[in-house]
């Protein structure tokens, strides 16, 4: 494995600070790892939400893990375009969310059309008899739901 590939592997497996079952690769926010002409490492990420508070810890974690791999000169760049969409979350990521108890976003997120979503299956009991409590939840990316069948509340990763 080359040095760049090793760095990429280390960064890709970093956990998301807020939803630690997901890695940065699962989230689909890692755009690339390269070596600049002068030898310094450039890691490019795309932020999820405009105001996501996890981006600052993520940037620090990336710098830390690259330095730990023996590369002193590292730059983390934020690439805004194309904008991140939940469609970039991997299938593995969706499975992990469900196991963790968060309803994953459906694919083909298209802005307004997702606002009138159908019922979201309960991650605990699988029932379709669920209700949305609020479009906003504990993090910018999640909405709050509750299951009418088993009674448990759960978060849903919003399609965006």
């Amino acid at each position, binding site marked *: 494995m080359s040095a760049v590939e090793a760095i990429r592997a280390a960064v890709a497996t970093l956990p998301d600070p807020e939803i630690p079952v997901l890695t940065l690769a699962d989230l689909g926010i890692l755009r690339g790892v390269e070596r600049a002409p002068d030898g310094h490492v450039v890691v490019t990420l795309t932020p999820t*939400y*405009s105001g996501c508070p996890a981006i600052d810890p993520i940037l620090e974690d990336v710098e830390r893990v690259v330095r730990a791999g023996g590369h002193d000169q590292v730059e983390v760049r934020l690439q805004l*375009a194309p904008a991140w969409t939940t469609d970039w979350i991997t299938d593995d990521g969706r499975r992990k969310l469900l196991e963790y108890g968060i309803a994953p976003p459906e694919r083909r*997120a298209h*802005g307004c059309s997702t606002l009138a979503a159908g019922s979201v299956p309960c991650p605990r009991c699988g029932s379709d008899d669920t209700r949305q409590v609020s479009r*906003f*939840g504990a993090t*910018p990316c999640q909405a*709050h739901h509750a299951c009418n069948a088993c009674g448990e509340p759960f978060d849903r990763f*919003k399609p965006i």
Partner: protein
Amino acid sequence: MTASTTTAASVGRYALALGDDALILAQRLSAWSSSAPELEEDLALTNIALDLLGQARTLLSRAGGLEGEGRTQDDLAYLRGEREFRNVLLVELPNGDFAQTIARQLLFSTYQLELYERLERSSDEVLAGVAAKAVKEVAYHRDHARLWTLRLGDGTQESHDRMQAAVDRAWPYTGELFTGDDDWPALAAAGVAVDPAVLRDGWDEFVDATLAEATLARPETSWYPAGGREGLHTEALGYLLAEMQSLHRAHPGASW
């Protein structure tokens, strides 16, 4: 159109105006935290505020970079006085009751969605990037405001009266949304900015439909105050900035 009409400085001032809109409204919405009518609304309003704050940070950083005087997003947020802020007056209106906050949100988010849908095509890659991300978030903001407008407008007599009063209060401040300052026509012609006048039709259509469905009357007024884009603000902004900036100003150079 000559190159001098779209200088880095004029693009920076445009970014600052959009960033200030988002920053001041984020500050207003944050004040609801722990005071909203229900817990879910504490979360909703602060989530909207956080999205707006994220937009503001990127826009203010861009503005500082184009200005070229080394001002960071923090310098711009915490060390400018009222006369340097370029937000529209609508976002600095005091929160008032919940209906007034919702009315302000409906009118502003509808404008912001129309704006960002077009700004995605800006020739400035940072503005385009902010817009591409924000347009999806603002769709949720607008829908949240619309749903509350429907519930309150088509609700009890009291909620209806309060919602109508709220729309009446905010309405005069919407005129300013569709004007800009002297640089903007050139910036729009150069594909950097969006001419706010083109946003009017889409805004009217959505707002009118929402008000009608909420059994609310579209206000009639001939008074449309403006001046925010030139730094001429209402008294309310002074108090807002004093609260927002006091900690930073009390400890210059501090870091967490």
